[in-house]
């Protein structure tokens, strides 16, 4: 209807420019857009970025490889473990080290927990953006449980900083698996509960169905990935197409919707939470005993116990701390499926203990490019719904 209205000459009025953000609750951070509107209808929307630009890539060029891990988690703080995973996988590929089985499974657990974590908060704030105040309170309840799990084993609640080059920082804390099992057992029912709030809610459907349409060809050309691409009708998931961390051993489905609109993105993300829970349940069963760090002296830190008892381990540890790890010459691009889409890390190495160049392919940055395309001709109020359906994290957009 909005599109029809904007095309009728007798309804035309003077075009007005409205400044949205950077400090606006619906922009999820410091995103700013200049919106040209004709009455209630958006003619054009021009994003302005950079309010949260910290010079991440330049900083990385001046840090040793190990020091970069916590920085990566500060890019996408909603799915923090995905970031350090992408980064460590890139380095491991370049160093050519094999990760022990147990560490692989722990990484999958952390990655899937952070996916649920991110989708939960998205669902809460997205509901908030379209006027449904209730969901947020339910989402925060489960999000708190996940944060407690992170805290238990990694120390950090929002940014666990748990994944290391060659494995994970330390073994799972006692009681972690029991609490995780308890979480996975009731989480499916909780997702059903969320669905009763929005999925068939007529107000929610009216606000989201047919809004922010992004056809598949446009989505591909714009580089959109993750749940947004799957909501546009393409079942593309990097966990399936280019498996990492042993994802090929898990049995899960890739949800796909064909509506290409905000409502489809909602359905995809809700289903993804169920699938992540499925993966978590399998991971608990699969979790083997064994080391949590790869054994590659001079490349990977030796286990803490060995440092106290073995001379060589102490020397390796000392050298890694003082000199850092040296990667072979060359470059490498590694991608993972983050909660937002294709998260990629491109590293160019010249043999020094710090990256010569690090390029962070942030999915939210690329997905946000689709905003002007999706909002043209819609109502101004829908712009907020569309923006929130992209699931942006500004820290990742601006880096």
């Amino acid at each position, binding site marked *: 209807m909005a599109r029809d209205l904007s095309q009728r000459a007798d309804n035309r009025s003077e075009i007005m420019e409205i400044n949205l953000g950077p400090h606006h609750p619906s922009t999820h951070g410091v995103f700013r857009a200049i919106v040209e509107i004709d009455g209630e209808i958006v003619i054009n929307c021009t994003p302005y970025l950079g309010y949260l630009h910290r010079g991440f890539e*330049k*900083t990385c060029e001046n840090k040793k490889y190990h020091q970069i891990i916590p920085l990566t988690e500060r890019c996408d703080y909603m799915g923090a473990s995905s970031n350090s995973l992408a980064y460590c996988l890139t380095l491991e590929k370049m160093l050519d080290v094999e990760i022990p089985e147990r560490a692989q499974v722990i990484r999958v657990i952390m990655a899937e927990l952070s996916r649920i974590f991110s989708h939960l908060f998205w669902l809460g704030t997205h509901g908030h953006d379209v006027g449904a105040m209730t969901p947020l309170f339910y989402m925060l309840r489960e999000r708190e449980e996940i944060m407690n799990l992170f805290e238990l084993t990694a120390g950090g609640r929002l940014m666990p900083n748990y994944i290391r080059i060659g494995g994970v920082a330390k073994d799972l804390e006692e009681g972690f698996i029991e609490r995780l099992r308890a979480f996975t057992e009731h989480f499916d029912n909780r997702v059903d509960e969320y669905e009763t709030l929005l999925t068939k809610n007529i107000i929610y459907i009216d606000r989201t169905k047919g809004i922010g349409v992004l056809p598949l060809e446009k989505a591909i050309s714009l580089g959109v990935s993750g749940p947004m691409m799957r909501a546009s009708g393409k079942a593309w998931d990097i966990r399936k197409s280019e498996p990492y961390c042993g994802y090929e051993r898990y049995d899960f489905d890739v949800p796909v919707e064909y509506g290409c609109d905000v409502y489809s993105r909602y359905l995809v993300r809700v289903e993804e939470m169920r699938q992540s829970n499925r993966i978590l349940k399998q991971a608990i069963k699969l979790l083997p005993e064994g080391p949590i760090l790869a054994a590659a002296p001079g490349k990977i830190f030796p286990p803490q116990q060995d440092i106290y008892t073995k001379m060589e381990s102490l020397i390796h540890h000392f050298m890694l701390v003082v000199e850092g790890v040296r990667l072979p010459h060359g470059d490498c*691009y590694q*991608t993972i499926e983050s909660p937002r889409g294709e998260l990629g890390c491109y590293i*160019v190495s010249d043999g020094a203990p710090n990256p010569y*160049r690090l390029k962070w392919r942030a999915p939210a940055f690329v997905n946000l*490019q689709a905003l002007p395309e999706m909002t043209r001709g819609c109502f101004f109020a829908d712009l907020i719904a569309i923006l929130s359906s992209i699931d942006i994290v500004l820290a990742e957009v601006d880096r």
Partner: protein
Amino acid sequence: MNQDRIKEKLSEKFGPDVLQFETGAQMSVLVPPEKIIDMCLYLRDDPELKFDFLSFVGGVDLYPASPRFQIVYQVYSVPYTHRLRLKTRIDETEGNPACIESVCSVWMSANWHERETAEMFGIIFKDHPDPRKLLLPENWQVYPLRKDFPLMGTEEDTPDLPS
């Protein structure tokens, strides 16, 4: 499709001496800068290749080597799930900034990546639909990701940075 077949196809199309291949776990192709648009269009439209998805465009400053800049295009094929990296080298001379054709007409997603690369390295992307700065303040005349730019900035060039 495997790397050898991609290599074969590209050499066939552009001639064996024009392109340099780096094979390994991930293949990359060094393309002469004037061929970049032809190359990208071919990669996107060839029915056997179908590189319809651009992951990113980025720059690498090889200072003090010459040519100084390397532009990297990482492409992906959604239907065939194969990846390829394109590289091209461009140089700047006194009064002539480094310059290359924009690939926005091939993949729309190049837009912001090229804007970011332009402001970070001082590279001009010709025929870019929106050549404004993206992340940096409008008044900056410096290019922070260049290797000769100091990590903390300078008081004259970047007065808005906290010291």
